[in-house]
């Protein structure tokens, strides 16, 4: 099986600070991969590079077999096929939840609001947001905002979804409702990459867990292998600290 998204020796530094130092990662269609690791280990930067929000310094990103890290490539058509959800939601505060969701399909795919409405209503309904479509982000709880952000990314019908610590900014009692959305999404067979600190969730649903340390994938394996029986000292030390 060819990987849907693959990185080869991906390198990225900010100024003189190396953040990703040669990352090799392959995600197959329908797979869910969790990235774990301490703050500053390069998880978020890796995700931003995959979505071409950050240009990489060296190495290669293959999406559906094509090199999308060619310098000078127009990132727009690629980003339309890769959904991303951020830690701090990043909803557009001046638009209602429904407008947030419809903006990109309207502008990019040229669809009208009327044509989009049934599809968007179904999405809101599916994630328990049916009565929140006309609300503005500041009228929604953090959990609701994050679910709207997920719906917004899904409305572009992406082939893969990237989640950047999407529950880290939430109150503990709101984490569950967002993880439920991911469970539902998992059932549809969506390919996903998550940077997360929710080890229980990773153990429950991930196909593969990668431990990032100092800008490289230090150890990877099935949740069972990596979380219950880590082989390397640093992985063991990290897991001891957070569990």
């Amino acid at each position: 099986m060819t990987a849907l998204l693959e990185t080869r020796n991906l390198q990225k530094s900010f100024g003189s600070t190396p953040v990703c130092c040669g990352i090799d990662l392959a995600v197959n269609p329908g797979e869910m991969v969790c990235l774990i690791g301490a703050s500053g280990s390069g998880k978020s930067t890796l995700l931003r590079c995959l979505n071409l929000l950050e240009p990489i310094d060296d190495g290669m990103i293959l999406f559906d077999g094509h090199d999308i890290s060619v310098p000078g490539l127009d990132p727009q058509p690629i980003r339309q096929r890769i959904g991303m959800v951020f830690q701090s939601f990043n909803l557009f505060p001046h638009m209602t939840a429904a407008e947030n969701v419809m903006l990109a399909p309207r502008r990019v795919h040229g669809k009208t609001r009327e044509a989009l409405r049934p599809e968007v209503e179904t999405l809101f309904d599916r994630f328990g947001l049916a009565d929140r479509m006309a609300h503005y982000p500041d009228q929604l709880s953090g959990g609701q905002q994050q679910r709207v952000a997920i719906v917004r990314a899904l409305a572009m019908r992406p082939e893969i979804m990237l989640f950047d610590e999407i529950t880290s900014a939430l109150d503990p009692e709101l984490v569950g409702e967002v993880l439920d959305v991911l469970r539902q999404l998992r059932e549809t067979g969506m390919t996903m990459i998550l940077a997360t600190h929710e080890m229980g969730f990773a153990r429950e649903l991930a196909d593969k867990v990668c431990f990032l340390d100092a800008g490289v994938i230090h150890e990877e394996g099935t949740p069972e292998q990596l979380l219950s029986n880590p082989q390397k000292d640093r992985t063991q030390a990290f897991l001891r600290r957070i569990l």
Partner: protein
Amino acid sequence: MVTRRQAYETRVRRKANLVAGGSTVLVLAGLFILVPLAPGWPAVKKSFFNADVFMQTFPGLLNAFLLDVTIFAWSAPLIFALGLLVALARDVRAPAAYPLRLAAILYTDIFRGVPVILVIYLIGFGIPGLGLPRPYNSPYIWGTVALVLTYAAYVAEVFRAGIEGVHQSQRAAAASLGLSNADAMRFVILPQAIRKVVPANMNLFIALQKDVALLSFIGPVEIFRQAGVYKSLLANFTPYVGAALIFLAITIPATRYADYLLSKQRRART
């Protein structure tokens, strides 16, 4: 039942009110007693605070003020539009558009660096001097153009600050959805930026309302010039006081409204 704290706060408030009231009365009494004791007061009163002259000239001043309002009304939207265009031009990254960016930078530097009255003189007298046919040689038109050019430079800077003030994560979110840069600016960044800088722009437009009076130097008989005419006719400065009152009637409520918007925005942010 009054709690200990409430009783204490009532006492403190009563004392503060008494002190504030007392000191205000003292200062006002001082002004009303001491100023009229000045040797030149009767003359000043006659030439600046003359009730007869005031009643006689006020309607004419109000009428002339309509011209100020008209000039303001048609320059304000132009300033808004030009300021926005210049702000956007400074943000253009395409190499082919570099001359546009350079022009925008030069424009804001020049028009913010020259006194308004100089711009009004140069454009208001200079361009009609080209020998344009009527009505295109009117100082009324070119004076207003001078105001528009000057104020648009300030408004452009305000807009630019607003655009830069929208958090980077909003651009990232727009980009991650596959929106083009132009769409991200138009639908995501600009609407937030414009809202953010409403109070700052309000202050600029209040300043503009006052600076319309500068056009009097090149011809149009607006309120300041009209007051000058009355002054010469009646040999009395009271019309200037009347003109000042008319300006204040507009600018004080507008300033208060801008302050209100600012404080509302501060509260919303916390």
